[in-house]
């Protein structure tokens, strides 16, 4: 009987899942949704990304964790919190942040006070109620500034530092003020565009040697602005 269930479950999984291997050891795993001679686009479960074939070393076909997640999620009966919890743990073990969050959200929908699921979603208890991490930061007096939570004092210090540097520049070279202001204006416009395209909380201060400077939050879509449009694009 169990074997029958497994066979049915596997039969429901699409077979077009792939691992796209990049030069240098990079990898994209998910479901290929478009492929041409020049590029390959993969649904990674939090959005999709397109890599040029010139960056691709090889593509291995198989069943991706993302597709397995989707098949397993479809098979969960309504109201089965434990099945969602198990799937959430499974997704966490495969670093599928979006899918783990979705599964834990299902647990919270069924069991609103569930400690494990609330914590996994980044929620914390405040006055006996589960609130989002952002709400807890606000209640502790932190403010959000350019995508990071900090004390109002640190924000003021950053702004004061910038003003001081701007004034120093101004005094140092009055003749270049117009050029600098034009540059600053262009910089502000660039930052505004980047801020719009890069979600707050997505940049990280990694502290374990070389590591990522960007790590998307699962509840947010992937950015539409690639760091390097020469070699690949987000979609």
């Amino acid at each position: 009987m169990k074997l029958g269930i497994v066979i049915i479950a596997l039969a429901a999984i699409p077979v077009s899942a792939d691992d796209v291997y990049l030069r240098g050891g990079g990898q994209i795993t998910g479901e290929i949704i478009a492929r041409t001679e020049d590029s390959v686009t993969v649904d990674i479960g939090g959005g999709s990304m397109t890599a040029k074939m010139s960056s691709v070393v090889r593509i291995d076909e198989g069943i991706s964790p993302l597709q397995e997640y989707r098949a397993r999620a479809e098979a969960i009966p309504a109201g089965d919190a434990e099945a969602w919890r198990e799937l959430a743990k499974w997704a966490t073990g495969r670093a599928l942040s979006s899918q783990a969050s979705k599964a834990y959200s299902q647990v919270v929908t069924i069991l609103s006070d569930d400690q494990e699921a609330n914590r996994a979603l980044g929620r914390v208890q405040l006055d006996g109620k589960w609130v989002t991490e952002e709400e807890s930061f606000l209640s502790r007096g932190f403010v959000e500034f350019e995508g990071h939570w900090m004390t109002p004092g640190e924000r003021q210090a950053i702004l004061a530092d910038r003003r001081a540097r701007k004034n120093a520049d101004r005094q140092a070279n009055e003749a270049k003020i117009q050029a600098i202001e034009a540059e600053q204006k262009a910089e502000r416009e660039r930052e505004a565009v980047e801020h719009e395209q890069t979600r707050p909380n997505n940049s990280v201060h990694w502290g374990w040697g070389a590591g990522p400077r960007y790590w998307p939050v699962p509840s947010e879509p992937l950015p539409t602005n690639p760091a390097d449009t020469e070699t690949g694009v987000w979609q």
Partner: protein
Amino acid sequence: MRQFLKLLPLLGVLFAACSAPSPVDEIVASNLAARGGKERIQAVHSIRQTAAATASGGRVARLVREIKRPGLFRLEFTSQGTKSVFAHDGETGWQVAPLQGQFEPQVTTPENDAAAGADQRDVEGPLVDWREKGHVVELLGRETLPGGEAFKLQVTLEDGAIRFDYVDVESHLIVRSDVTRIMEGRPVLLEATFSDFREEGGLVFPYLIETHVMDRPEVIRIVVEHIELNPDLDDARFRLPR
């Protein structure tokens, strides 16, 4: 001659003071002993750590970190269907990071290279033979941390970067390390705390590393699951692919 004989006890005290290990040397020696001993530490030529990382907003990642003498480093960061590689061959840092829109290996900028910390590529840690490595270690005093008292050491690395190591007065292990990094154009103080110490191959390692920017609430939590000592790691793994 009588004058000289009178000075002898004073000279003896001065000689003893000069030849006795300094407090810094004693603290460093106690730390190396607590980690398993200098001999065992120096017998490690490479290390592979497998870990899970979590951050605010429900972010999860799988990590494989490899370090090899001399100064070779590679971190594989797997999250949401992507694997990124951040590496250094001892001279050049490079990365391929699909999540950052980089699908081709790229040399890292000097700023990012410095932010990663040369000390992180030292498989034995900067306190081992710190004088020979050109570092300077000074004792700044004792501080009370949440877990107890600790000696605060200022370690000025050979490249000029400064880190502050907190050596627990009881366990003699480094329980916190602060570094200033230039990030997004300005200095931030990154605080890393180490706990859940366990033994592997006669050496002691922290299995929980929590990092955050000083006075900020967001924390990245790294839980080490497995440590391999002296795995066979080909140097090519660390070199920028051509």
